[in-house]
């Protein structure tokens, strides 16, 4: 509640703001002086080489880990964020549908509501047939999808996603990107999206931060303007391809 009012009165303040945030593990600097501003309703992409600190950044944003120095403001409503971890982490002693229902149980919804929502997302993610299976009876991609469903099921205000589509086939992946984009448009979602797929990031996001390897620093920030474009057209537009190439070049250069 406090958060909410703060947000309303100070809507000019950024939704999430990092100011010179660093993160160390013992004597290893993983993130160095990262500053970013995320406004409500933005979809932010995070790109960078493996091990550069993307997952670490998300845990900082979600408050699961403490920052080592700098300032971090997060004005999102408590309990209204969702997180898709890089690995699925489902509870092995619960079935798929029970796993997905967990956040709703935490939010104390009625049995019926829970069932409705869970079923809806089970269907969206092609998992309905396997809802009674235990995680160990599922394929890698299915587990990851379950983890996505668990994040979406709460209608979150902010969603943090750590390579959610990595283990999915291209067709499913594209469908899910569309799906999430639609949810994003409909619900005024704020998203932070870690991925290795440049095209996906360019398609989904308003802004993309590019990180360098060791220590993780922002080496590029790309604003994407697609407001008035039809999405299908956008995917095939020149802007799209040019942005992709531009990002690739930044990444390639940073590697040398």
């Amino acid at each position: 509640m406090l958060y909410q009012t703060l947000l309303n009165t100070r809507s000019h303040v950024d939704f999430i703001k990092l100011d010179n945030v660093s993160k160390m593990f013992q004597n290893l600097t993983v993130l160095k002086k990262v500053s970013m501003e995320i406004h409500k309703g933005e979809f932010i992409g995070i790109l960078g080489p493996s091990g550069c600190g993307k997952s670490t950044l998300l845990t900082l944003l979600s408050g699961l880990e403490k920052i080592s120095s700098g300032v971090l403001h997060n004005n999102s409503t408590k309990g209204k964020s969702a997180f898709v971890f890089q690995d699925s982490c489902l509870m092995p002693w619960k079935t798929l549908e029970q796993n997905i229902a967990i956040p709703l149980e935490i939010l104390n919804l009625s049995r019926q509501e829970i069932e409705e929502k869970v079923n809806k997302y089970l269907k969206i993610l092609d998992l309905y047939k396997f809802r009674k299976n235990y995680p160990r009876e599922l394929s890698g991609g299915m587990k990851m999808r379950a983890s996505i469903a668990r994040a979406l099921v709460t209608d979150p205000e902010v969603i943090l996603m750590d390579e959610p589509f990595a283990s999915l086939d291209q067709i499913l992946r594209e469908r899910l990107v569309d799906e999430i984009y639609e949810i994003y448009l409909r619900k005024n979602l704020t998203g932070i999206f870690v991925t290795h797929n440049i095209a996906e990031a360019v398609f989904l996001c308003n802004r993309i931060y590019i990180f360098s390897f060791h220590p993780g620093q922002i080496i590029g920030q790309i604003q994407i303007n697609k407001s008035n474009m039809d999405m299908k057209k956008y995917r095939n537009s020149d802007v799209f391809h040019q942005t992709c190439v531009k990002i690739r070049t930044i990444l390639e250069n940073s590697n040398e």
Partner: protein
Amino acid sequence: MFFIKHVLKLEQFWKTQMNRTKINLTSFLYPLLFLIFILLFWEFLIIYFKIPKYFLPSPSNVLNAFILNIKTFLIATLVTLSITFLAITLSIISGVLIAIGVFQYKILDKTISPYIVILQTTPIVSIIPLLIIWFKSNTFITLVICAWIACIFPIISNTLIGLKSTDKSLIKIFRIYGASQTFMLKKLYIPSALPYFLSGLKISGALALIGGISAEFIAGTGGRASGIAYILLMAGYNLETDKLFAALFIITVLGIFIYSLFNFISYLLLKQWHDSSTNF
């Protein structure tokens, strides 16, 4: 179509059931054969070497003593069993509560943990006189308390280590959605601790029996409602070796029964999610 599927499922079900029974049969068969072999060998030895009954009774002597005193044994068994189960129930409740308390509150952990260890390491035998005074000579309660003290520690220790072994990523998931500590306990920590807890329970079952019996050895009840240890003790004093062995045999069977019971409970609870439940 649906009907056929259902029939197929049923068939599948019975097949697995049968397989399970088969496994259980062989798992009974081996030790049973071993037992029969040992008993026969024992009987033979005693007949062959003419070992006197007082030195080592033969299985048939023991059986005889058992049959002759069956009623006494039955009552005593019931008393001992009720002490054991009361103690286990008590220690499950208190042990889990203590483990959770210690897990949740650092202060509790720091302040009382050492005293739980003390409780565990103080030999029951030495506190029975105190207990007798405290519980106004109610021997039954004294015995239950002794058995309880004897068996609570493995439950606390294993439950606690189980709670602490909860998957760190799962904890994060729950935190994200702002789950309350109570909710996390119920839905996350306790299920995570289950296999450890059950392993502790198996140890405790045996300890409760031993605790109760040792306490009875020391505090002694006598009279109408006396347990199996009293019979064992008196048989010893009266030099009735066959009866003593019969009592020992009953204790052993009780032990196996309690162990199997907890093993079975463990199997039922764990079969959904943990592969270590097979047996032992």
